[in-house]
């Protein structure tokens, strides 16, 4: 990934969006979780989604790589609609990395195995090449020494960094982070946020669902505030944190700033 110059941070991005979410709806039973969501993500943009629990943030994220099937609407990625019938989502998911709240490292492999499974199985690289890439990625997240460790012996912060390295081994164009630090102790949140910060600096397109307001403020190009299944407000961090227009946004942020 070439190092991007982030000077035009707040001036907005030009060109085609990498992901376009259009009129997306999703219900679980009678509960309507997403009500008509529209969202564009430009290449190299970092978008954070904030909002209270149950507002539909994670569901929106999981709809982008089809871990949840939307009831209606479109998710355009590279010109193909992921929500259409019979689309080979497997091919498109190769380009969309995802990091989970609960890490979800494969328990039956060591760290290196976790990182090389997908590239080798999907024949993206030979075993030796995949291992070389994996070692480079692990180096980037500071865990090269743990390549042969059993994943169950790692700390939470180390696990999450391995999960990020594992996703990066597929050379994704988009990274989705689903509350990556919510399951971590406060004192090790920093090591994961640091890795994510570096990734943003390198120009990775990222959509991050988070409760870390400092991270949203400092790293993201755009903040999306979700409330009750709709996007209540979106704008630059300066706008959202400095001068929120909606009463609901103010209420939500006030609660976080109290803490």
């Amino acid at each position, binding site marked *: 990934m070439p190092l991007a110059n982030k000077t035009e941070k707040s001036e907005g991005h030009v060109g085609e969006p990498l992901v376009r979410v259009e009129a997306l709806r999703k219900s679980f039973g009678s509960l309507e979780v997403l009500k008509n969501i529209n969202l564009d993500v430009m290449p190299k943009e970092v978008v954070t989604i904030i909002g209270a629990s149950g507002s539909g943030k994670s569901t929106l994220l999981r709809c982008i790589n089809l871990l949840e099937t939307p009831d209606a609407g479109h998710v355009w990625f590279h010109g193909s609609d992921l929500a259409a*019938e019979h689309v080979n989502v497997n091919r498109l998911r*190769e380009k969309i990395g995802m990091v989970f709240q609960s890490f979800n490292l494969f328990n039956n492999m060591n760290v290196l195995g976790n990182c090389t499974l997908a590239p080798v199985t999907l024949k993206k690289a030979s075993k030796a090449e995949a291992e070389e890439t994996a070692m480079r990625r692990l180096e980037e997240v500071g865990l090269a020494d743990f390549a042969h460790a059993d994943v169950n012996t790692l700390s939470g912060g180390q696990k999450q960094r391995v999960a990020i390295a594992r996703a990066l081994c597929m050379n994704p164009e988009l990274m989705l982070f689903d509350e990556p630090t919510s399951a971590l102790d406060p004192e090790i949140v920093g090591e994961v946020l640091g890795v994510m910060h570096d990734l943003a600096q390198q120009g990775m397109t990222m959509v991050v669902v988070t409760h870390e307001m400092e991270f949203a403020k400092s790293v993201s190009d755009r903040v999306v505030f979700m409330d009750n299944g709709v996007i209540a407000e979106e704008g630059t961090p300066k706008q959202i944190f400095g001068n929120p227009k909606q009463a609901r946004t103010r209420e939500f942020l006030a609660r976080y700033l109290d803490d």
Partner: protein
Amino acid sequence: MSSENEEATAADAVAAAKQASSRGGRLRRLGKFVGGDHRYVLLSTSVIALIGIWLSMQKRTDMSFLAPVYFVEVAMYYSLVAWLILSAAALVTKLMHWRDYAERSPFARNPLRTIERIGSYIVVIITCVLFVDRVVMGFASVTVHAIEADSIPQGGLAAAIYMVYECRDLFVTGILTTVELAVFGTIIAFFLALLLATLRILTIDKPDNDLVRFFKVVGANFAKLYSTVIRGTPMMVQALIIYNAGFAFLRGMGLSVTEINGLWSTFIAGLVTVSINSTAYMMEVLRGGLESVDPGQMEAARSLGLSQWQAMVKVVFPQGIKYAVPGLSNELVINIKDSSVLSIIGVVELMFEARSVAGIYYRNLEVYLVAAVCYLILTMVATWLLNRLSRRLDAPRFSNTSESASAVGE
């Protein structure tokens, strides 16, 4: 006992426990135990002494080695009685000095305490000698007489031994057939169950075309139906249906009865029955194991672009099967026992042979007790082997963990 002494022994015990892993440590621990102070020694050895006295009052057989040296046994008998009297005296002093027994009673202090300890070992040795003389040599005597007998003896044990000896070939064939049925049946069933459990838990996936979707629906419903039908009918009925259905089918193809007996033997029919029956139960065990794998594992694999099948094979199966190992090994033990119903179609396994022997001598109870003991030994051996196997399966994981744990420490 003084408190210093108590502390010392406690410390010794801890030290001994630490060394327990090595052979030398184990020996040293045994030495500590033998030389150590045992508070309740009188109570437990009194029970052992009573057993010894009871054994001594039993009739001697012709193989008893104590019969020629009668005076030795008399001495042993009265030693045991003396021990009981000593214990009773200790008990009385304990009742009299309930609170300060440890300080005041002569039984709790040297030299009497040392004598008690040595005496307790003598009591155990005497009882062991009496046990060998009466029980072991008695059994040997019965065995020798039963084997030499011309016709079946009256006594139950003698009759059982006589029948086992006379019909040893039948029992050996029966046991071997039972083991073959259980082992091969379980192995075949494992692979069939893996297939059916997979069919059952695969869900319709976005990239699937209509044909794949159709087969997934059919497969899942077939697996469900299979499990319901097989688990809902007795294995004995299944054996009769499978054997006769195969027979009728081959007959319909125009084969003669002798040709069919060569092709569709009762053993083959029995093996098919065990496999088909066990598949249904193993499928449920495997499904439970696969479903207990965290769904996040599947999601993570899918998010990297793996197909449902690739994620199953690489991530879910290796973890799920490990969870299912105890249930799967239990199925082998069940098959050893349940293959006994196959005697209904004439499979020459252990139960079939036991019934033949019972038919020869008209001694049903003894024969079936022998059969029960054989099954018990088989299942115990199988359980022991499977425990070792499952420990072996986990072993690389454990050693990996300790390796990487040390790596973390560095």
